[in-house]
């Protein structure tokens, strides 16, 4: 059984991401139970932009999830000792799906869909002598009998795969549509169908084409750029969610207690966040990342695999990012709590002798959720961008880890070449842009739905 010759190897970030998914499920269940919250959320999904951007985010999260099931492959038995050895590098489920892109490395740069290398090389001619020309790629377009068919082949293959995927997708959508007709639903189905089929067609096209070509070219060491960019999705999604989740408890706890208890608690919290705010964030992050590096160097026994190190550094970076950026939300929550605790329903609860803890949990926290939700989604895209910036200046994720920031960092040299190597920066840019745009649009809808001033049947008046 070839399939079972693997050993599950969960990284810290894998465990965190699955915990996250579990808590998300709990959240969804509570939302469905609460009619007011359900109404608000259905408002988000009933808007066209809301449901479309949600689908896109969902697709990214799915990629990140499949990329978070890591295992080590079993090595071929070398000795007779019966001891089983596993490969030193970890593989994820996503790697299996992306198999055509993996391990088909060229020597160096090549443009998207190219069949020749990007750099000239000295080649020995069969009849003796040396010629300097663009060498034929080893894998890109290796199925072609005649290089002259190159362009035609791309078009034909593209048409075929788009056709073959569109048909089942359309059948599926048609079945769903006729099924949904009987049920009353206010979701914007045409937009959902369109987004869904666009995602399926584009991804299966890219997957199919990369069996024959390097769809987004190759990088300096000849690795497939598309593969790197897709692997970087997990880094981006994780850094966005984990760092946001680190900010949340700090901001919520400190902000609400400062606003509710006031007095010396408020003073202490305010001093903490003004101090933190007055130190340049980048400086703090750089210093902490260097500390982590030192820790890894001095404790090699804890990090057996290369990916363990990279992952530890990555999780640490999420925490550092979170620890340095909770002040904005904290300040917002403090102000909101100051306002809420003067409201009459909080006074009425006090008059009933309701304990402070219960007042916070029942009256204050639920009425600040709209702020928390909005900050959550906005922070997400902020952190994805922050990762790119940090990796660019060299204090971000480990260079061995695929990330958009690292890709952009490498592009510094590539953009200075003549002719320009544009594809890896464009690949990173497009994937990041789509995610951040979807997150921003989605947060816009969430804000509209949860802002009491925006909703017609608002709480206040």
């Amino acid at each position, binding site marked *: 059984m070839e399939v079972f010759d693997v050993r599950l190897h969960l990284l810290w970030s894998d465990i965190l991401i699955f915990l996250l998914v579990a808590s998300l499920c709990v959240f969804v269940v509570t939302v469905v139970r609460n009619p007011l919250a359900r109404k608000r959320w259905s408002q988000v999904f009933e808007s066209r932009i809301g449901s479309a951007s949600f689908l896109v985010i969902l697709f990214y999260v799915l990629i990140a999830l499949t990329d978070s099931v890591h295992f080590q492959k079993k090595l071929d038995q070398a000795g007779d000792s019966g001891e089983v050895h596993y490969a030193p590098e970890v593989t994820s489920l996503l790697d299996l799906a992306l198999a055509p892109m993996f391990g088909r490395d060229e020597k160096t740069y090549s443009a998207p869909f190219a069949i020749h290398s990007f750099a000239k090389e000295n080649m020995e001619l069969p009849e003796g002598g040396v010629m300097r020309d663009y060498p034929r790629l080893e894998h890109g377009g290796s199925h072609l009998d005649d290089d002259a068919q190159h362009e035609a082949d791309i078009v034909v293959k593209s048409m075929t795969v788009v056709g073959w995927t569109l048909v089942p997708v359309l059948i599926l959508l048609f079945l769903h549509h006729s099924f949904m007709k009987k049920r009353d639903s206010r979701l914007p189905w045409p937009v959902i169908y369109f987004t869904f089929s666009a995602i399926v067609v584009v991804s299966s096209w890219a997957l199919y084409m990369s069996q024959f070509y390097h769809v987004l070219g190759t990088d300096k060491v000849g690795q497939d750029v598309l593969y790197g960019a897709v692997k970087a999705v997990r880094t981006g999604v994780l850094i966005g969610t984990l760092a946001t989740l680190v900010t949340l408890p700090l901001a919520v706890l400190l902000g609400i207690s400062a606003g509710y208890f006031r007095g010396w608690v408020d003073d202490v919290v305010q001093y903490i966040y003004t101090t933190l705010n007055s130190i340049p964030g980048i400086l703090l992050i750089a210093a902490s990342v260097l500390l982590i590096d030192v820790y890894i160097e001095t404790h090699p026994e804890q990090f057996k695999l290369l990916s363990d190190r990279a992952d530890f550094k990555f999780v640490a970076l999420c925490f550092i990012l979170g620890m340095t950026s909770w002040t904005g939300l904290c300040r917002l929550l403090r102000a909101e709590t100051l306002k809420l605790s003067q409201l009459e329903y909080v006074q009425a609860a006090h008059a009933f002798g309701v304990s402070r803890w219960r007042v916070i949990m029942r009256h204050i926290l639920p009425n600040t959720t709209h702020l928390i939700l909005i900050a959550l989604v906005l922070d997400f895209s902020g952190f994805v961008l922050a990762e790119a910036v940090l990796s660019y200046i060299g204090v971000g994720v480990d260079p061995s880890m695929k990330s958009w920031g690292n890709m952009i960092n490498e592009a510094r040299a590539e953009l200075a070449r003549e002719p320009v190597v544009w594809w890896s920066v464009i690949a990173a840019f497009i994937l990041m842009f789509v995610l951040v745009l979807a997150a921003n649009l989605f947060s816009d809808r969430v804000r509209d739905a949860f802002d009491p001033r925006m909703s017609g049947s608002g709480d*206040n008046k």
Partner: protein
Amino acid sequence: MKPLLQVNNLVIGAGGSCLVDDVSFEINAGEVFALVGESGSGKSLTSLAIMRLLGEGLSIRGGDVQLGTDSLFALSETQMNAVRGRRVAMVFQEPQSSLNPVQTIGTQIGEVLTLHRGNAPDTAIIELLNEVGIPNPEERLNWYPHQLSGGQKQRVMIAMALACEPELLIADEPTTALDVTIQKQILELLNELRRSRELAVLLITHDMGVVAEMADRIAVMRHGKILEQAERSQFFVNPSHEYSRQLIHALPQPDDYLEYETHSPLLDVQDVKVWFPERRGVLQRVVGYTKAVNGVSFTIGRGETLALVGESGSGKSTVGRAILRLEDTASGTIHFDGDEIGQLNQRRFASYRKRIQVIFQDPFSSMNPRMTVREIIEEGMLSLGLGGTDESREARIRELLERVGLEAGHLNRYPHEFSGGQRQRIAIARAISVEPELIICDEPTSALDVSIRGQVLQLLQELQEEMGLSYLFITHDLSIIPHLAHRVAVMRNGQLVEQGETRQVMTSPVHEYTQHLLQAVPRIPEHA
């Protein structure tokens, strides 16, 4: 004479519903026309439609507005802009939010003048401020809105409205946010201005007292329709529509006093002071005190209602909060049923929480919007450990809801699904759920419409009889007192200036301030 403003068959709709339906009236120059109705009756919409300032989603479906010889709905937007401000001006309810806080009042009035006249000499602004009765206008020209009192702000708003010498002034609840003495001044000012300027005034209000003082002609609106139009003298003596009659009769009878009998004391407040420290500097040193309540003494007997009357800022709400121990007292004693409770800590006070409860003013903010009615009512019972098992508590909640005139089926609804009056009923159910002996009512009816106010007061009185409740009724509305309170205490600047039996205080007040207050209350002509 041709009327100045003619509104013919105005229809305003939003989506599928019709909010103002076939409204017609006319206003002559120098006349005050009052549009009366409860909230949601469409009176403000009508005025906005005249200015063509309807919000998004609302549209004028039909009808016509004639100002002088112009049909306002036929004008282009540019032409309409010339009408706004220059020929028709508006004064809004809330002077607080109608003035820009970062500009001096001189600049703001000047801006209006320049827009419509091209220049704004200081003398013109000073003249305007003089006309609306702002003292020392030369100096106040450079003041910011926060330096003025609420009444003065409303005067500035009126000055801005008058800056371009409009023919018609639309006043949308111009005195609702103001104290009764200041309301009187503003109404007098409006009256004077319309006489001196031959100004037509469209007065929008829900307050029948204001109508009786001001209006020449009255139109009653309900559900977007005008039910009745009449001259003032006609209207109050002989209202033709059933609803107008209800509105007038919903007003408390001014001479219907409660019988006073002596009660055994329940709450005894002696010389209570509540001082808020003012802190300055890095170390937050206390540099002085705001004396919100400065030596107040009164008693409330069992089954008795004491009305605590005063204008905003007089410290009357703070007294209530001090009794509830939501505010610390600086000195003085509070005895409840013989026990000293003024200095107890929160834990020791917990046993009195059951016995003293509170109903707040604003039915919109007094309930957590994210809790169901059941959760709201049971919160106090759970917190104080009452109500026994889940079943008996559930039964009790249902009983309470029915007692206050709601249906038990409303238990799973959220506060925003109820009207203001219904919400106030829920708040009452919440307060009586723990069977208190004393309820502090902090302006419980001032956010309600007249007819609903009557119902809520009726409910409170029934509950008093059934449960032997005592009320400390904090209010600024003098008209409801005779009918409601056994005794009255008048408060000003943190001190009681007068207290005594209701009949005595209302008919022969001793203190100058009480007399002043009582005179300021708009009177309604005796009705049959």
